[in-house]
């Protein structure tokens, strides 16, 4: 259950705006056309709502295939230098990602690789690491997961206990990780482990861990939805060669923070697209649902109390869309990070409210779940409601986010 970075990406979705450069206009046109022409047929069983919920092998095969195609077409790693397997454009990635979201094609499975590992390697990786690992990330040949959270270290990440002990030119890893999205599909893990128990912040090192080895056991965890959306990973004398260490020994916390707090790097850097539903499309769907759901022959939309609640959401979602427009304007944004740092907590809470409201619109019909022939959109709304807690809990819970906002943006004293 790593942070759904797609949320941040969703929040920055913008209205179509006139392109400044003609070559940008042309590139957008190209993306649009390519996506139209290459839209893949639907899967047999429907894909989950977001890429971090994928667990089945057939979905995996289908999505890897799709990602590889999009990479070949230049929609992924668009702005990455060619020497690392990228396409070498400048400022085209956001156009490509925009179009991917807009066209409602499937998302990209290797979102942790694209959203976190690649940006991390581009900043902190050695030349060899970049050349070895980036291309298979882009093409989805190698799926990545992330090993940050531990049973005792959720919100309080820095208290992680998984140990890394140097032994010649390799490291011995013991401990465990939890809430590992894609854990059962991944062959590599971006790992944080503790090399020094005495030094809380400077005793953590970042590694690239090969999962297919005897010392690593992956156990899927079922979510409340019943899906197995994430895993526990246990290390018993797992081994990592020292050249798979990222940056210096003890630099792990710095490495992790530079990815976690860099919106650009993490969310949009090389084209991670984890959702193809936007908040705006969701609220439009909700309005449609209220107009078509009838009780005693009367549409729920005609009930002013429900309508008021839905319109409240509609307004807040429009505000988020306008945030994205306002954020780059220095004179209006109240500081560079003020709006971006709000996006996760606001987006995830509105998303939860939106799904809860949909259940209210459905009334008793909301009880019908995936697989029920009478379920509205095969149980999409109760499923979405339950999965919405991923957004408010993981990747820094709403509580932690509010601490960060109060402290970093408003300068209030640190709670801890």
């Amino acid at each position: 259950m790593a942070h759904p970075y797609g949320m941040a990406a969703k929040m920055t979705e913008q209205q179509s705006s006139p392109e400044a450069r003609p070559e940008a206009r042309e590139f957008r046109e190209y993306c649009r056309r390519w996506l139209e022409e290459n839209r893949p047929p639907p899967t047999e069983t429907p894909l989950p709502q977001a890429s971090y919920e994928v667990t089945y092998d057939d979905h995996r095969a289908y999505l890897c295939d799709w990602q590889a195609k999009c990479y070949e077409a230049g929609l992924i790693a668009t702005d990455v230098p060619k020497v690392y397997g990228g396409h070498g454009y400048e400022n085209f990635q956001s156009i490509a990602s925009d179009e991917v979201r807009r066209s409602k094609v499937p998302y990209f499975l290797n979102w942790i690789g694209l959203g976190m590992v690649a940006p991390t390697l581009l900043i902190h990786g050695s030349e060899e690491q970049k050349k070895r690992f980036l291309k298979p990330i882009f093409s989805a040949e190698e799926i990545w997961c992330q090993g940050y959270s531990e049973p005792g270290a959720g919100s309080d990440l820095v208290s992680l206990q998984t140990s890394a002990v140097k032994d010649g030119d390799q490291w011995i890893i013991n401990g465990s990780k939890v809430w590992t999205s894609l854990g059962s599909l991944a062959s590599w893990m971006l790992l944080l482990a503790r090399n020094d128990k005495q030094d809380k912040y400077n005793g953590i090192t970042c590694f690239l861990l090969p999962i297919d080895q005897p010392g690593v056991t992956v156990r899927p965890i079922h979510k409340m939805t019943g899906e197995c959306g994430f895993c526990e990973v246990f290390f018993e004398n797992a081994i990592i060669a020292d050249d798979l260490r990222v940056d210096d020994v003890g630099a792990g916390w710095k490495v992790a923070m530079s990815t976690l707090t860099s919106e650009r790097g993490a969310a949009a850097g090389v084209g991670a697209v984890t959702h193809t539903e936007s908040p705006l499309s969701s609220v439009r769907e909700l309005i449609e649902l209220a107009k078509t759901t009838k009780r005693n022959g009367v549409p729920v939309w005609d009930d002013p109390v429900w309508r008021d609640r839905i319109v409240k959401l509609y307004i807040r979602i429009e505000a988020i869309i306008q945030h994205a427009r306002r954020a780059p304007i220095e004179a209006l944004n109240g500081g560079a990070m003020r709006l971006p740092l709000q996006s996760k907590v606001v987006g995830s809470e509105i998303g939860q409210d939106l799904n809860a409201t949909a259940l209210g619109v459905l009334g008793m019909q909301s009880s019908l779940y995936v697989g029920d022939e009478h379920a509205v959109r095969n149980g999409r709304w109760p499923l979405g409601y339950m999965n919405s807690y991923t957004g408010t809990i993981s990747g820094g819970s709403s509580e932690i986010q509010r601490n960060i906002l109060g402290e970093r943006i408003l300068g209030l004293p640190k709670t801890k």
Partner: protein
Amino acid sequence: MAQPQDFGFDDDIVMLKDAANRFLGQRQTLVQLRASLKGTEDPYRGEERQGWYDPAAWQEMVDLGWAMVPVPESAGGLGLGLVAAVAIQEEIGRAACPTPLSSTLQATFVLKEAQADAHLAKIAEGSSMALALFGEDGAPDADSTTVTANGNKLSGTSSYVQDAQKVDGFIVAAKASEGLGLYWVPKESVTIHRDRIVELTRDQARIELKNVEAEVIAEPGSGEQVMARALPALLTLLAADMAGAAEWQLQTTAEYAKLRVQFERPIGFFQAVKHPIVNMMIAADETRSLVYNAACAYDHDPEDALRCARMAKASASETAAFCSNRSTQLHGGIGFTWESDVQIYHKRQMHSQFLFGDASWQRQKLAELL
């Protein structure tokens, strides 16, 4: 009409409530429920889920006399009324116990208002039954039913029937030319189409009736009035269940906040955790007080029963939504896992929230009384 200051919770009922609490605590039904769910978790590829319950526990409940608690003495019951039934239902909710008793207690009050002593006697003897009232759109009125009666023959489908796989028979609302009637049909004469639902502690189904022979409980044309009189009891029972579940959510979250350490403190130290838990308590307590009041009003002041019951169910629905949300959020990742009981209560509360109408429905109807 004068109501007892103690809501009618006399010593006998308090003892009954304590006994129910102990019994349900000892049975640990959820442990058994989990065994029955093994392999069914995945909503796309898991095995079919059934409406599991513990038949032995149900038999014990019958032996302990719980089913006959609100059955009038004239029909061989204890005649203890809604206050006593609510005492039991609150404990069932607290235990999130899958049991035909929930539906059977509801059915009892419908039968009581219909003065259907013969069927009440069956309940006193251990028979179970559920209500089949709603049409496909799930509108929370008995007259949303799309089942039709032609003499004693019923045809059509009744939706959102709770505990359908657990009970021996159904009380079906059906429309005849004279108006709404209520009927009893045995399980054997209907086809049960199990719904695949989110909730794990109840089963739900559409029951299909094809020209089925039925026993009349309330003559066509009198069904509306019987249901109107019974409705306060149904709402109050449901609200009691939700109050019990909310108390579990509150206590469990508070305990977790004392044990779970982050940033070198039990998380309950932090006001971002502490204050929402206090708000859970405030919500749960409002619901409980309104539930006891509604039960007492039904037993002692029927004129005021509907107003009180709508308040209880409105409050219960708000409380259920809030406590479910906060219990999952404050448990962090753990509460979001299948393994945690937090999700079982969350789903039960989501389900109860909408049964017989959600909070805004209740308030809309309540406004008409103010």
